[in-house]
């Protein structure tokens, strides 16, 4: 009973801080970094004109039909 609120508050404050910091760290290294890497990889050797020609040939562009 002694210092009941203080003990509980200390425990929960520490826990809340650790849980939220842990969530942030997990998100950064689980989601954000892989995504940044994926985008960097994709655009490293990306040729938009080649992509455009491929889409045109497939016939999905209404104003740029395949010949």
């Amino acid at each position, binding site marked *: *009973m002694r210092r009941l609120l203080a003990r509980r508050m200390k425990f929960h404050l520490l826990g809340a801080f650790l849980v939220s910091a842990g969530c942030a760290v997990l998100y950064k290294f689980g989601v954000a970094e892989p995504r940044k890497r994926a985008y960097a990889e*994709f655009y490293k050797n990306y040729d938009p004109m080649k992509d455009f020609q*491929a889409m045109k040939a497939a016939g999905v562009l209404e104003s740029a039909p395949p010949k």
Partner: protein
Amino acid sequence: MLASRVFSLVGRRSISTSLCLRAHGHAGVVKAEDYTLPAYVDRRDVPLPEVAFVRDLSAQQQALKEKEKASWSALSVDEKVELYRMKFNETYAEMNKGTNEWKTILGGVLFFLGVTGLILIWQKHFMYGPIPHTFSEEWLSAQTKRMLDMRVNPVEGISAQWDFDKNEWKK
């Protein structure tokens, strides 16, 4: 003017006094309902509740209470425990003890989830009509081909899983 104000004060006091006499004179005091009186409660943050647990003491317990007024070292251990139990319902250990209620709750939740599942199965079998034709295999494959032709989500999504040179899904 001052004299009249004094007179009104005196008049009000005399009226209220007579009203009080009338209220208390006839019916007496109304019996207080149980829920209006201070109550006993077993709570972690209330170490000394407003009343003792046992309200109506038996003759034996009253004798013990009389003995309590003397020196406490004259009381035996059993008598001290009896006095404690008269004052409190549960000890802190008993109060804080966990129950097995969570098993009942979990079982109930899972049971009703199962009932819901059965209802859904019944509905799919007896109630719903056929699904749209756009879910057929041919339609879905044509849809996927069109998505790949348009290069939908080429960085992380579906077009990133397709190998455009070999014309197959990436391993």
